């Protein structure tokens, strides 16, 4: 399985194993640097956030999607276009809350954890927490404050990986002109 860039002018294919192994090296190094899992989780989230604020522009430049009018559209774009573009998978969207402001992304297989086993002394480590940061950072740049967290993880024995996304509020300050 190789990752393919979107309908941009260059279609860069990359070995997905290189990607998986690089991410693994990153997480293990963080585990060595920080004493406890909580700090590593926080750090992964922060790094993901920094990636997300830049990745959103790449995504918008290559995918040409317009502004989403509600959270359901956002969920569709994230699952069907963004995940497909960057990780080559299409998670399914389920478990909508009655108010329409929370949903779950179910990932059958997570390319980041292809060869990974969590050891016993790292049971509270959220291995793919970078993804939460990326989603949070990216959506913040398009004026949406969201809360993203893992509720199920195949590394911890669950059958699927589930990411829960909750819409908190629209960020009203610094709106680009023309959006009201």
């Amino acid at each position: 399985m190789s990752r393919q860039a979107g309908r941009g002018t260059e279609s860069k294919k990359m070995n997905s194993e290189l990607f998986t192994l690089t991410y693994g090296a990153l997480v293990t190094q963080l585990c060595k640097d920080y004493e406890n899992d909580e700090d590593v989780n926080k750090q992964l989230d922060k790094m993901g956030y920094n990636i997300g604020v830049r990745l959103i522009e790449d995504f918008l430049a290559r995918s040409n999607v317009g502004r989403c009018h509600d959270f359901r559209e956002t969920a569709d774009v994230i699952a069907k276009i963004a995940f497909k573009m960057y990780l080559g998978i299409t998670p399914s969207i389920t478990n909508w809350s009655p108010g329409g402001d929370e949903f779950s992304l179910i990932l059958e297989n997570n390319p980041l954890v292809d060869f990974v086993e969590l050891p016993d002394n790292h049971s509270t480590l959220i291995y793919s927490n970078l993804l939460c940061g990326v989603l949070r950072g990216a959506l913040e740049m398009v004026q949406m404050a969201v809360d993203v967290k893992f509720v199920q993880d195949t590394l911890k024995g669950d059958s699927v990986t589930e990411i829960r996304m909750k819409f908190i509020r629209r960020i009203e300050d610094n709106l680009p002109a023309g959006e009201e």
Partner: protein
Amino acid sequence: MAIFSVYVVNKAGGLIYQLDHYVPRSDTEKTFSFPLDLVLRPRDERVVVAFGQRDGIRGALRAAAGPGRAGGGRAWPGGAEPGRAEPCRAGPADAALPAVGHAVLAINGAEVSGRCTADGKDVLEFLSNPANYPVSIRFGRHRLSSNEKLMLASMFHSLFAIGSQLSPEVGSSGIEMLETDTFKLHCFQTLTGIKFVVLADPRQAGIDSLLRKIYEIYSDFALKNPFYSLEMPIRCELFDQNLKLALEVAEKAGSFGPGS
């Protein structure tokens, strides 16, 4: 068919990148003998032609008090009588609307900086001294300084917002195109608030796709550069190189491509 310049404006309205790709040159260089038959006057940080026009050297359309009387008496060299009245352009009665006249760009081949010559003398003093003649002066349209560009970019940012507020329809975009007889300004605002502005020849086609391409180049070479901080001026060589390439491709394609 040309693309004149590219501007990138960040969310707050600050100019973070500017490129002058093609600047039409309209300089004239002439040798003059004493006394100078053009009226020069200081304006902002430059010396501009306030009165008198000849051989491609443009003067400002300043109101004259009467025919033959120069407006900028202070600049008239050597106290000579303004008897050699050049046929003057009847300027608008309202002197508060100055048109931009050509500025003094160089004297005897050496570029002037602001109002001083290359060796530090004041330009007007230099030109009022008969001993310095004959002198060769180059006039031309002054190019915008980087401060002026910054100001104009933030002004455009505000006008862009006004554009969307003025709209009778709800949810209108801001200014997308500004057209004059010599150029067209195209603006593209991303969903994240960054504006890409391209000034091009009015007949140049394909600017919309060029703006999208510039967005891609920005996301590749500015954002993926870990040393570049968001919202700050873009100083990335790869961004410059790729942008120039894209402009050249667009210029060639635009002459026979479909209208954007």
